[in-house]
């Protein structure tokens, strides 16, 4: 009873500015459908070529936006109408691409994706072998090993670089920031070539997993360092002062206060670094050679990895091998999504924790 009473007394929350008049809705509907209908009709009749119809559609749609804007808000609405129509095209473009990418990998990749495909290796499998045999277990292992080694090398160095920039505040920190930035621009093919030119071409090492990991390190380090730098900057200055006021040395402030406080952010930095490299193909072409057998020794003999498997598989003119390549791409995409989502969840936790 009493709640009903209160409901009667208090007005319900309203948002009068959200109400659209029927006229406005009509304008929007007409403006967004008329050009499409018109151009589709022209195209069907065959008066104009598809390209011309398409361009006419774009022009008409933007003009329709302009007219709708003008009707709605007078002269000031003209530019807004054009802008919103153009933004609509941008969104449509990216939406189409996004769904098309996922759709093409999904439809073509599901065919060969069986449990056996994920765990078996590719030994004795030829490009024409039927889909029920062979798999990318060896490549999954290879990718995990190569990415694992790259992580072990690049995470400590990346975090130390970030500590140098934010905590030690050495004299050359602007230089170091610039170098990290420059390093993040190194093309992946150059990273692979560099390892090849220094360590393999010179005969110091053979093609093996470690070489791939080193090439990955070059790509991963800047991502880790830059993300870690941002994360460490978020640690409140107060905490450093408090620790110093308690008689801590600089080193202890970092190791006992700053790094533990930023822990989840640093994990995010690591995961973003992994997501950056896990799908990289070009560095592997020159470093691990690829293999059909399972090889878990990173310093002895060629190794397989998922991206390289896809790269080689899709160039084969045989349907089963292509199907396998698409399935491998699906597995790779899945791995990327896992790392990406983990990083997202962790960083949103951190933001919530701060509030």
């Amino acid at each position: 009873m009493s709640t009903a009473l209160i409901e009667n007394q208090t007005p319900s929350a309203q948002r009068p500015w959200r109400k659209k008049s029927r006229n406005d809705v009509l304008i929007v509907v007409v403006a967004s459908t008329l050009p499409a209908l018109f151009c589709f009709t022209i195209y069907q009749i065959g008066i104009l070529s598809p390209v011309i119809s398409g361009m006419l559609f774009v022009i008409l749609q933007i003009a329709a936006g302009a007219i709708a804007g003008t009707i709605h808000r007078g002269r000031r609405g003209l530019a807004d109408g054009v802008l919103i129509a153009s933004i609509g095209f941008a969104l449509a473009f990216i939406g189409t691409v996004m769904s098309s990418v996922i759709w093409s990998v999904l439809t073509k990749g599901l065919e060969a994706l069986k449990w056996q495909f994920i765990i078996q290796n590719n030994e004795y499998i030829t490009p024409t072998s039927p889909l029920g045999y062979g798999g990318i277990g060896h490549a999954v292992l290879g990718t995990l090993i190569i990415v694992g080694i790259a992580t072990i090398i690049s995470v400590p160095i990346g975090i130390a670089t970030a500590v140098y920039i934010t905590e030690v505040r050495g004299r050359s920190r602007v230089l170091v920031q610039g170098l990290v930035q420059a390093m993040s621009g190194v093309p992946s093919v150059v990273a692979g070539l560099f390892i090849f030119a220094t360590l393999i071409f010179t005969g110091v090492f053979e093609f093996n997993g470690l070489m791939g990991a080193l090439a990955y390190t070059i790509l991963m380090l800047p991502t880790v360092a830059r993300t870690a730098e941002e994360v460490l900057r978020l640690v409140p200055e107060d905490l450093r002062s408090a620790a110093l006021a308690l008689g801590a040395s600089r080193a202890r402030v970092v190791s006992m206060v700053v790094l533990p406080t930023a822990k989840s952010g640093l994990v995010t930095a690591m995961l973003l670094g992994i997501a950056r490299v896990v799908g990289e193909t070009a560095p592997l072409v020159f470093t691990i050679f690829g293999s059909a057998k399972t090889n878990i020794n990173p310093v002895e003999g060629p190794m397989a990895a998922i991206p390289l498997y896809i790269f080689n598989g899709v160039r084969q003119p045989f349907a089963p091998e292509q199907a396998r390549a698409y399935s491998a791409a699906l597995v790779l995409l899945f791995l990327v999504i896992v790392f990406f989502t983990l990083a997202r969840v962790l960083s949103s936790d951190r933001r919530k924790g701060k509030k």
Partner: protein
Amino acid sequence: MVVQPPQPRTVPRNAQLTKADRRFARIMTAAAFFSLIVLSLIAFFLVYQSLPAIRDQGLINFLTGTEWDSKTTSDGTTTEDPVFGVAAMLWGTILIAIIAIVIGLPVSLGIAVFIVFIASARLATLLRNTIDFLAAIPSIVFGLWAISALTPVGKQWGEWLTNSLGFIPIFENNLGIWVGTPFIAGIVLAVMVTPIITSVSREVLGRTPPELINASQALGGTLWPTLRYVAFPFAKSGIVAATMLGLGRALGETVAVFYVLNLTYGKINWYQIVSPDGGSIASLIVAKFSEADPLEISALLGGGMVLFIITLIVNAISTTIARSTVKDM
């Protein structure tokens, strides 16, 4: 009473550091300079290992030549002198990167404006995550997409473009083939640079001081004037830096381009974007690497060096612009 103040006794900066602190600082400094070492080693080894080929060809010929032929027959015998020139591949790389930016930049700005100024909070978050996810998709996956989904469509569009607008030089096509064109490679790259440009532009646009936006809106400014006179001037150099960042990415991209671009040696295709004559240094390296003899490998490393230098320059420009923005603010 006017007096001269005493001279300060400055606290020596290192006095506050203990021995352990100094060791700690040294270790961190060493790690920080790892990137310097790697970059210099990359530069050194690429130059050093490409010297044999450059000496063989001459630097000028290597940079301006368009032929790339090891003249090695299938049985491994060499009858003529090999010729290696990167000019066609270099211009091809730049051409597809330009196409990528021309398509990708407006799209990115549109999305960034939508996220910052139009979308509701929930829609903006969704879109941001979508864009970030797009950035995380490996290039090989885009490569597969480009083969299976984009190439048929891009081929059709190319044909239409030539038929309808072939009188414009850039849409000329004398071969009657529309697969493997810079146009298609450029679209793939546009898709790949869009998330990069979008996320940086979104950030700089989002940093427009809210009081400026409020002021503009209070004066009756609608969306366009607010963008034109408030947000864009504020974010201009950030957007330029973002574009350079995307350009750097487009120049260095390898596998996605490799699948959909037909490499043509012997001439430079300056502008015919729907003709199947493309070039890409990164693709060249991947395409020729597996069957190269030592001299050709050396030449390929020379190509890598050229690519490295170009991306370094593009990145340096981006960093300089971004830094001057920070100073302005």
